[in-house]
């Protein structure tokens, strides 16, 4: 309701205005009497026979006798050339709408997107949750709540039990205990008072509830507790239990070790002891047959120190055998598994971002660097990049404009955007600064960029806020163009261009539909 000007110009101050607070506005007739018995919250001055005014419910138009356009619109604007006769009215709509890949409306009446797992989407209303599949089909309805878990599993509380459903909405198990997370497709962790255990889908207790952390590392399951730690195979066969020292598991090779204060005992992937060496070092990580000591030393399987890298606070291992670490001066370094530092050690690098397929990027004090390690290339002419090459394209930024590049860092679509959201499920959301739309992997827009911000909330399911709607009413209060259009533009040659759901219509100033001459109805679809 604040789209209209509600101040008074200050002579000599172009950008400033006087606002009267809690004001009562009215008009004097020539006799000096007030025109209206009830004053307005704001009034613009009379232009010829009419004035635009604001009441408590919105904007309207009055003449000297009465209200001619009801005071209910979120804004009213006089149309140039027809200042005294035509008014563009705006209706603000609250809430969100949901769109498919053609940006056609999906009517999830009264329901709001709640959460999704990239495949299924949960919509909720005040007292109902509904699960929607990838084709807009209802998988479950009238449920009290639903939790989305790994492997696209879903947990629903039913009859005082927790039912577990797969991605297709098929019930695959139930438990009296609420699953916290799934370790694999058959087993889940559960928690009580900060302690964790593992239960199978058949309700058998696999790991007792006695551990602080339970994680799958490569092909081993490691349970770490205060009193003891256990190492299990992927089949949940207990391999080893220890009460002192700690397990170090290599997720790449499947080998593992027990690190004690003075010794390191090594086991192969088949759990046979393969060696032992003495050490006073403390080790924090074991990865790709390297032991990482807390002091920054890297040791071989035989306990020989191969290299000293910087003493680090945090280390991150990436796929395809790279790792980065943060040194104690908070600078990040990127290494390959031949222990060569890829990044420039002199640069004050922030945390590295991994974009898939051996591409890393990092912001540093001097700028921004992209490392394409597969093609042995470096790029420093981007302001930023984001996204992951698993979706084929990533987003690059130059001169405050965004565009999509392929794996060769080629500007694929040769189009620049004001804002973009990366490709997901073959679609990306883009804005040209005037409005949002979506594009496919051919780079073509699905409809004109006339939407408020669009987000892909579920699998090829888009959410946007309801747009304000515009129409035209004349000074007799007669509706010339119904307020159902998302955009109304007065073209120079006396034609009105109107956009509704991405379709363009043309009208004359009498409201006659010039082109296309068809029934302007909503293209909303209902849920199947």
């Amino acid at each position, binding site marked *: 309701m*604040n*789209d*209209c*000007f*509600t*101040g*008074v*110009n*200050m002579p000599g101050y*172009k*950008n*400033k*205005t*006087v*606002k*009267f*607070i*809690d*004001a*009562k*506005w*009215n*008009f*004097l*007739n*020539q*006799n*000096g009497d007030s*025109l209206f018995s009830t004053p307005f919250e704001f*009034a*613009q*001055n*009379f*232009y010829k026979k009419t*004035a635009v005014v604001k009441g408590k419910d919105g904007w309207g138009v009055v003449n*000297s006798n009465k209200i001619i356009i009801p005071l209910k619109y979120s804004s009213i*604007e*006089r149309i140039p050339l027809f*200042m005294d006769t035509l008014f563009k009215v705006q209706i603000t709509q609250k809430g969100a709408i949901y769109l498919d890949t053609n940006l056609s409306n999906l009517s999830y009446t009264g329901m709001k997107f709640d959460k999704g797992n990239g495949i299924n989407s949960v919509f909720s209303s005040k007292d109902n949750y509904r699960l929607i599949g990838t084709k807009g089909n209802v998988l479950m309805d009238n449920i009290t709540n639903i939790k989305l878990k790994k492997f696209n599993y879903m947990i629903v509380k039913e009859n005082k039990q927790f039912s577990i459903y797969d991605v297709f909405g098929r019930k695959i198990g139930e438990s009296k205990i609420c699953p916290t997370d799934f370790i694999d497709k058959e087993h889940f962790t559960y928690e009580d008072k900060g302690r964790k255990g593992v239960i199978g889908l058949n309700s058998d207790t696999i790991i007792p509830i006695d551990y602080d952390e339970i994680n799958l590392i490569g092909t081993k399951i490691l349970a770490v507790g205060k009193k003891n730690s256990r190492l299990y195979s992927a089949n949940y066969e207990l391999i080893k239990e220890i009460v002192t020292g700690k397990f170090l598991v290599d997720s790449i090779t499947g080998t593992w070790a027990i690190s004690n204060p003075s010794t390191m005992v090594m086991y192969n992937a088949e759990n046979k002891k393969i060696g032992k060496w003495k050490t006073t070092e403390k080790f924090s990580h074991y990865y790709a047959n390297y032991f990482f000591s807390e002091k920054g030393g890297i040791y071989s399987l035989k306990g020989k120190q191969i290299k000293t890298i910087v003493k680090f606070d945090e280390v991150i291992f990436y796929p395809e055998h790279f790792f980065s670490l943060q040194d104690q001066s908070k600078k990040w370094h990127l290494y390959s598994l031949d222990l060569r530092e890829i990044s420039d050690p002199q640069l004050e690098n922030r945390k590295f971002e991994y974009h898939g397929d051996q591409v890393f990027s990092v912001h540093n004090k001097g700028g921004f660097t992209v490392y394409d390690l597969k093609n042995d290339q470096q790029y420093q002419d981007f302001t930023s990049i984001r996204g992951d090459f698993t979706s084929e394209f990533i987003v690059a930024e130059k001169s405050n404009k965004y565009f999509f590049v392929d794996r060769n860092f080629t500007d694929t679509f040769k189009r620049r955007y004001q804002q973009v959201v990366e490709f997901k499920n073959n679609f990306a959301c883009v804005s040209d600064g005037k409005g949002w739309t979506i594009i496919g992997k051919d780079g073509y827009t699905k409809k004109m960029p006339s939407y408020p911000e669009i987000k892909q909330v579920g699998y090829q399911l888009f959410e946007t806020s309801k747009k304000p709607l515009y129409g035209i009413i004349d000074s007799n209060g007669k509706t010339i163009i119904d307020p159902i259009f998302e955009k109304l533009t007065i073209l120079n040659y006396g034609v009105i261009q109107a956009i509704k759901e991405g379709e363009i219509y043309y009208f004359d100033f009498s409201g006659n539909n010039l082109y296309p001459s068809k029934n302007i109805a909503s293209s909303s679809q209902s849920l199947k």
Partner: protein
Amino acid sequence: MTTGDKNTKFKVVSIDSSDFQQYDYARIVHENGLGIIDKNGKIVNVDFIENGNNEFMRYCQAPKSEIQLQTTKNQYP
């Protein structure tokens, strides 16, 4: 006054003397602010009144006002 009586109730700082030729009131600035004086000398205090000549003159009464940055366009400059 249009009655020929002399105003002794308040001090007028300025008056739009042409107003009484068109309207049955005149816009004035008096010692306490803006006002409208009718042909009988009755004064109504206002916080804003439109300038220039208009058949229907807008005015407002407000307990307070403030200066703000202009964020929306005024169609009537």
